[in-house]
């Protein structure tokens, strides 16, 4: 742009210099000159200005044409040719969704647009940083862009704070004028607006010797109908496998939908259907396991829709591991009820042991610890804390007595007795979260049947999930490391309450046991991009796919040292929600950036078109206009033509 301004200024500078470099001439016919000068206003001056303008614009057009500019929504009014283009390509799983009425994924559309645009920037060097590998790679030719392994579809996530930081690092060692072209679907989960790394990224971009222009191409458009399925857990229960599933509708449709479900387990295929009425559905599916099978794997899939990559979720299971719980109680009745609730008869693989606080066994293979005794102290407290941090679940019940000891800044208030002929009733509880949440089919836990005549309410920094009718706390939760600490304000003892009835105690204890046992399952389920999978692991599932990307960027079942490992796309790829332009402006504050939301429906549409030919034509027209304006006016024959001996 600077060159254009300089070119446009040349005729003006020449004009001004000419005005300054006037010659002095002694003149006789001054009376005509003065009269002419008085009359030379208005049209004449306008004509002169027009001539000057034509010259300036013609030179500006020439300089602009020399820069081979491209115009279009992505490029704005005109973009000059940079020396280097760094393309940051979003290869996350969400980029495989297709806009409505469009036969290509957003990634494919973006690549087609990029190919067309880069064709017009033939002199520029192109380097691509893809979101999966984060590595800068030279692009030999835009024509092979969609054939590169590094542009193929993946099941990864994207982290743009990190990617733009890597682009800035690359540009730090590059010379010349550079631009960063970001190709994305603006999924908010990929941009992490709350990430503290943005501060560093912004600083890196703005402090470059030649801060680059950032052009963001968002392949927008209305989403096609799409449903995503995810395996939340794969838990072995005796001869069956309990699959915790979640189905999310990522489009904006709200009408009830019935979807066929296909489950492939160790080569056998099962079919089922699910009905979804809202945007999200969590369910459990129990499938029989082949007899005497130590480990295995499979996948669960939905029919094809707007995003083929979120229609499948993989799972794997290992050998049956007993689910052990430990009950620490000072009263026999409480210990009995807690033992029954944590390992009821008929629940294969569940067992419960009773111990005293003084003689705790090894906790490492326990899933859940039920503690109906004074809060642990000393070495015991350290063991329990360690158990929690490793993912264990500990449920503390109000202990008899009046000890005021604390554990992790939590303690019990003194024992309270309800007024005569009265009891406390559980009246409020969190139905979407916690141990008293509603079941997967939506039926509530009958927690309002709970009555108590004795209680000890917890105190300390913990979130309250259930309250008595007088507002005091019944159930509190504190997250400790990977595990959870729960505090229940009464005992399953009929001298205290009717908690011993199975209505409340059984779901409460079983949920704690299931949550505690998940730490033994997570080894079989992981996400793409985590370090659990070794680079040499081979894919062993037989889900039909045509992926060409590197295996480490793809979901599937892989062989690991401990058996099959199910690798799925990251959770945030199923999150709906896009970053709005204002949010983007905040993230890239201080940089020279522009956003183009591509809503066009034709895949062949280009991002911009070169206009240098048009500029040359404009220059010629301007020069022609200038020449026409410069033509002397036809003056009528006058006496000014000397005619010696003209006689009156």
């Amino acid at each position, binding site marked *: 742009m600077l060159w254009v301004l300089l070119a446009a200024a040349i005729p003006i500078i020449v004009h001004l210099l000419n005005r300054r470099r006037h010659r002095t001439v002694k003149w006789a016919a001054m009376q005509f000159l003065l009269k002419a000068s008085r009359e030379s206003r208005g049209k004449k001056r306008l004509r002169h200005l027009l001539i000057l303008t034509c010259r300036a614009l013609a030179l500006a057009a020439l300089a602009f044409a020399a820069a081979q500019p491209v115009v279009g929504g992505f490029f704005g009014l005109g973009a000059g040719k940079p020396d280097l283009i760094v393309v940051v390509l979003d290869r996350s799983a969400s980029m495989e969704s297709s806009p409505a009425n469009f036969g290509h994924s957003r990634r494919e559309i973006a690549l087609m647009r990029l190919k067309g645009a880069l064709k017009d920037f033939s002199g520029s060097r192109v380097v691509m940083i893809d979101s999966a590998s984060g590595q800068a790679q030279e692009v030999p030719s835009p024509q092979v862009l969609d054939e590169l392994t590094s542009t193929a579809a993946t099941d990864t996530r994207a982290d743009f704070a990190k990617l733009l930081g890597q682009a800035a690092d690359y540009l730090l060692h590059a010379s010349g004028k550079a631009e960063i072209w970001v190709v994305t679907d603006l999924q908010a989960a990929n941009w992490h607006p709350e990430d503290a790394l943005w501060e560093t990224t912004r600083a890196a971009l703005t402090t470059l010797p030649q801060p680059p222009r950032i052009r963001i191409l968002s392949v927008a458009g209305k989403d096609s109908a799409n449903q995503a399925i995810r395996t939340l857990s794969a838990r072995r229960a005796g001869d069956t496998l309990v699959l915790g599933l979640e189905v999310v509708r990522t489009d904006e449709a709200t009408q009830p939908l019935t979807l066929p479900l296909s489950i492939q387990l160790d080569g056998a295929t099962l079919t089922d259907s699910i009905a979804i009425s809202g945007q999200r559905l969590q369910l459990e599916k129990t499938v029989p396991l082949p007899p005497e099978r130590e480990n295995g794997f499979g996948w669960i899939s939905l029919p094809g829709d707007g995003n083929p990559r979120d229609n499948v979720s993989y799972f794997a299971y290992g050998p049956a591991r007993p689910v052990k719980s430990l009950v620490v109680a000072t009263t026999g009745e409480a210990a009995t009820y807690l033992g029954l609730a944590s390992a009821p008869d008929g629940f294969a693989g569940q067992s419960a042991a009773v111990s005293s606080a003084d003689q705790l066994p090894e906790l490492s293979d326990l899933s859940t610890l039920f503690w109906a005794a004074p809060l642990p102290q000393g070495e015991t407290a350290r063991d329990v804390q360690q158990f929690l941090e490793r993912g264990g679940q500990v449920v503390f019940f109000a202990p008899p007595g009046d000890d005021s000891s604390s554990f992790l800044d939590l303690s019990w208030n003194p024992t309270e007795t309800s007024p005569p002929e009265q009891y406390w009733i559980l009246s409020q509880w969190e139905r979407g979260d916690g141990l008293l949440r509603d079941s997967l089919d939506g039926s509530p836990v009958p927690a309002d049947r709970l009555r108590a005549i004795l209680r000890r309410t917890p105190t300390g920094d913990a979130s309250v999930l259930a309250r008595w009718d007088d507002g005091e706390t019944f159930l509190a939760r504190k997250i400790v490391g990977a595990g959870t600490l729960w505090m229940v304000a009464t005992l399953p003892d009929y001298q205290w309450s009717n908690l011993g009835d199975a209505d409340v105690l059984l779901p409460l204890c079983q949920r704690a046991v299931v949550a505690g046992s998940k730490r033994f399952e997570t080894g079989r389920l992981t996400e793409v991009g985590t370090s659990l999978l070794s680079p040499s692991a081979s894919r062993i599932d037989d889900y039909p796919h045509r992926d060409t990307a590197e295996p480490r960027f793809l979901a599937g079942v892989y062989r690991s040292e401990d058996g099959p490992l199910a690798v799925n796309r990251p959770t945030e790829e199923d999150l709906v929600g896009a970053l709005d332009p204002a949010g983007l402006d905040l993230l890239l504050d201080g940089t020279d950036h522009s956003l183009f939301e591509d809503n066009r429906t034709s895949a062949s549409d280009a991002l911009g078109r070169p206009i240098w030919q048009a500029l040359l034509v404009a220059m010629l027209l301007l020069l022609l206009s200038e020449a026409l304006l410069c033509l002397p006016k036809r003056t009528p024959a006058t006496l000014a033509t000397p005619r010696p001996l003209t*006689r009156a």
Partner: protein
Amino acid sequence: MSPPRYEFLDADMLSRLGSLPVESRTAMVGNVAGRHASPHRGSSVEFAEYRKYVPGDDIRRLDWKAYARSDRYYIKEFEADTNLRAYFVVDGSGSMLFAGKGEAKVAYARRIAASLSYLLVNQGDAAGVSICTEKLHLEVPPSRRPAHLQRIFDTLADLEPGGETGLVGALHQIAEKINQRAFVVILSDLFTDPAALSEALQHLRYRKHDISVFHLMDPQELHFDFERPHRFVDLEDGTALVAEPSLIAEEYQAALSEFMLSVRAKCHDATADYQLVSTDTPLEPLLREFLIHRIPKGK
């Protein structure tokens, strides 16, 4: 070696033009016999008219043959020939110094005045010069003597133009001063008020003078063909103006044309012989055509 004092004289040219007479377009009143027609009847060989005899007429001029045919006395009258007195009025204002692409207007005026003076004296007529500026009116009265030519040439050689023009005043003075009919040749760029100039010319016409106007213009004044901006300084009063010639050329030409048309019309009204002369025009063809054109038809 210093340049010759009368460098404005071209002897070869004068010898070539010597065969052409300087004629007057009107009758002249001279004090000696000459080659020019006089308003008075005289003793030339050219028959003028008959008129009735009245007592007192010279009986030698009676036409006896006419008396024999008509029995009436007729006096036979002949044209009287007399000499011509020419006044060269040279504009001495500063504007005459301008020399663009041709020679200075004053130099051109010198050459015309000197050449015609020479030719006139050489054919027995009288020539004088009048230099006019705003403040000065220098006059060399007309004389037939060849020695008088030197005074004319000296006056022309010493002419140093400056200041504003005094042409109109000088013409009025000349009109008042010259009692007899004369040939008044005006050599000027006429950069004065056309209306005032017209009055002066009419004054001369009223006195029955034969007027010739050489309107001297430099080619650059006529064409105004400057390219880059110039600072124009008035030769007469020093007024300065910075202008872009390409911007004002058209208006300049229009103003100049208007002036030229006006001046020519004024000359026409005063029956003056008007010639627009570009100073890059060769002098000899100019004078030759001027002289030939003045020769009366049939002579």
